[in-house]
């Protein structure tokens, strides 16, 4: 065997072919961070354009492309992969598994996502980025000239397939791969919420797939789905988009709710208050998430009955969300709370997110929504939810799990500077937007007139955006510093509660030399309280089976990338060639047996000797 383990691997080849969930997690995190910076840059440019009334910085056409790409990039190419990155890096460790259920599919999911992400952004260099808004509403998107929207349609389609198979992978992983004793009601909340999120991905993404496919047919093949003049109906697109789009909001926010639950409990040094209520609330939010999409379409004119039903369903979601907020507060109550950067973001999240939730309830009232609709009030609302919720959560998770993923400690001073600048910048940017919206400033318009009391608030918002930009640069600086001369992290730097802190940082290739026996909620904390140095093994030390690395996921994704790019320019021969490449990859995967290999037990480090 040892030939395999000791064979020197070319690092680039290794990263291209890896099926190790920890490495795929890092790939997701790195590419997600890249797109986050890109989306952030787009946001800064938007705010420069809006710095002064009638300012001419980028102009209307570029502004439309920037706002479309900012939204699309942040949702699909930054938040989603960052969440998948954490899911990959952490969930198998939290449930005591050696790997995910489908390592090959996992790698395919990543490469499909990155192929789609790159394709989507190629528009910038090939005649104009998409400019029909991140929702791509027809008929604006079907009639948008140039190829911009084609990049949107095909890029999202390809990355969406990657997300879908990733979701299935995590559903099966969490159901089938849990260590002995890890019952559902002993799973850490990050795992729980990722489980629910994976379910939402599975059932929500197909609607987007169809919406995008129909859009593609209308644009490339001259079908009439959304062309009202030929009997088509653009409202169908809105339904399809939001049947996907609303669950998508919960797909983003539920995993970070899980992260907060763990971070707050860890730094309060108390078990999570109301664990089962948290699980139930998460499931309920996931379920209700499928029945509220029409609140994005209140002004479409579906009639008072439809609007009322969906308004009530929307308001209902405030209940489980409120349960969660109170549980976090009660977890801190009476705890020995400490505030490293991770917990600062977690605690800063609570008031920020509550504000976003409040405006959400305001928006859920249809008559009021007719006033707020398409104004900056909506922009303020969803940024409070997505930045105040998702981005704060991703930052919190980033500071919390960095030691486990990379084995070093981030600089806490720079981290705290990052938090405070970002926190202040965030509120400075988005709080005034509520009032801009109430004063009637429409969203998605590239400028505004002076003398309408809009100047000061817009100026403040732009300054806030710059502060967030500086904060992000500090974070990048922190990462670079840590990569160069970061202090080594121990196995358990935060005195953690869950299983991932029981093994070395970073985790070895096989995660657990022996599958651990789980004896309760907060498994690692229980063992520590019982005076044990490590987890109790559930099996004797034995050879460990590992999956084979493969280049096929990369090749299959490359095939779809080529097919997508060629389809945009109607070069059908090349497009079919790309598809054939993908299918050939699938056939090879199906025909050749992959038996994996074994790490022999003699080559495993002695028990207890894993720590640094």
């Amino acid at each position, binding site marked *: 065997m040892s030939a395999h383990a000791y064979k020197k691997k070319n690092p680039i080849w290794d990263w291209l072919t890896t099926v190790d969930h920890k490495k795929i997690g890092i790939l997701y995190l790195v590419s997600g961070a890249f797109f986050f910076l890109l989306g952030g840059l787009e946001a800064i440019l938007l705010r420069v354009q809006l710095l002064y009334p009638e300012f001419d910085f980028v102009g209307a056409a570029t502004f439309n492309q920037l706002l479309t790409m900012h939204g699309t990039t942040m949702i699909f190419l930054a938040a989603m992969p960052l969440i998948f990155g954490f899911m990959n890096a952490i969930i198998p460790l939290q449930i005591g598994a050696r790997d995910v259920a489908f390592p090959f599919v996992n790698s395919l999911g990543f490469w499909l996502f990155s192929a789609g992400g790159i394709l989507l952004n190629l528009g910038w260099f090939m005649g104009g980025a998409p400019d029909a808004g991140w929702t791509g509403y027809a008929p604006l998107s079907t009639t948008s000239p140039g190829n911009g929207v084609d990049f949107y349609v095909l890029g999202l389609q390809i990355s969406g397939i990657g997300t879908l198979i990733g979701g299935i992978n995590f559903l099966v992983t969490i159901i089938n791969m849990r260590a002995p004793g890890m019952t559902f009601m002993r799973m850490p909340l990050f795992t729980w919420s990722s489980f629910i999120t994976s379910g939402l991905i*599975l059932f929500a993404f197909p609607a987007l797939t169809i919406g995008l496919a129909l859009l593609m047919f209308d644009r490339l093949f001259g079908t009439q789905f959304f062309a009202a003049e030929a009997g088509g109906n653009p409202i169908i697109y809105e*339904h*399809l988009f939001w049947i996907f789009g609303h669950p998508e909001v919960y797909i983003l926010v539920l995993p970070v709710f899980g992260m907060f639950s763990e971070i707050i409990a860890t730094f309060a040094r108390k078990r999570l208050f109301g664990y089962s209520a948290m699980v139930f609330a998460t499931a309920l939010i996931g379920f209700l998430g499928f029945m509220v999409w029409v609140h994005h379409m209140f002004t479409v004119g579906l009639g008072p009955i439809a609007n009322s039903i969906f308004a009530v369903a929307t308001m209902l979601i405030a209940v489980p969300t409120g349960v969660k907020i109170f549980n976090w507060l009660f977890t801190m109550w009476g705890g020995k709370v400490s505030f490293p950067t991770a917990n600062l973001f977690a605690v800063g999240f609570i008031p920020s997110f509550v504000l976003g939730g409040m405006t959400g309830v305001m928006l859920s009232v249809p008559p009021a929504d007719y006033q707020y609709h398409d104004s900056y009030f909506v922009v303020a609302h969803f940024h409070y939810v997505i930045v105040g919720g998702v981005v704060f959560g991703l930052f919190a998770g980033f500071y919390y799990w960095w030691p486990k993923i990379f084995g070093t400690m981030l600089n806490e001073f720079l981290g705290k500077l990052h938090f405070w600048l970002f926190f202040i910048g965030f509120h400075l940017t988005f709080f005034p937007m509520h009032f801009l919206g109430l004063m009637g400033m429409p969203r998605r318009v590239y400028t505004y007139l002076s003398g309408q009391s809009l100047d000061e608030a817009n100026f403040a918002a732009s300054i806030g955006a710059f502060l967030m930009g500086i904060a992000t640069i500090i974070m990048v600086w922190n990462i670079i510093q840590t990569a160069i001369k970061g202090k080594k992290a121990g196995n358990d730097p935060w005195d953690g509660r869950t299983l991932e802190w029981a093994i070395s940082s970073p985790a070895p290739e096989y995660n657990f030399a022996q599958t651990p026996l789980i004896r309760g909620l907060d498994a690692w904390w229980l063992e520590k309280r019982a005076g044990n140095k490590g987890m109790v093994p559930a099996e004797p030390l034995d050879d460990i089976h590992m999956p084979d690395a493969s280049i096929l996921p990369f090749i299959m994704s490359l095939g779809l990338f080529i097919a997508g790019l060629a389809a945009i320019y109607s070069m059908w021969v090349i497009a079919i060639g790309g598809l054939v490449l993908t299918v050939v990859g699938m056939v090879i995967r199906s025909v050749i047996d992959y038996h994996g290999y074994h790490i022999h037990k003699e080559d495993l480090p002695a028990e207890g000797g894993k720590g640094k």
Partner: protein
Amino acid sequence: MSTHESTEHVSEHDQSHLDIHHKIAHEKEFKQQIVSFIMMIFITMLAFVAVASDAISDSFTVIFIMILAGIQLVFQLYMFMHLSHKGHQYPAWGIFFGVFVAGTCVVALMGMIW
């Protein structure tokens, strides 16, 4: 999963005993499948006849054939796809939540447009 683990540890004698049980179970299943198939053919014909004949009103026909399709769905899932068998609780969750979302989709796209 549990069936497999329990069969793995039984003795030779029990194994043959189990095999006989399996055989009987399979013969029973075979009959059930044939009956299901005949039922499905019958239901399909019923649907076509209902549409082809002028005796039944249009609005009733639509409801009638939709119910028939629903029955066929149940036959496929429970008989042909063995959803009733042991170890299918997660698949059942998956498919039925899918059906639920599918239902909302269809209602929205069909009814909530103008």
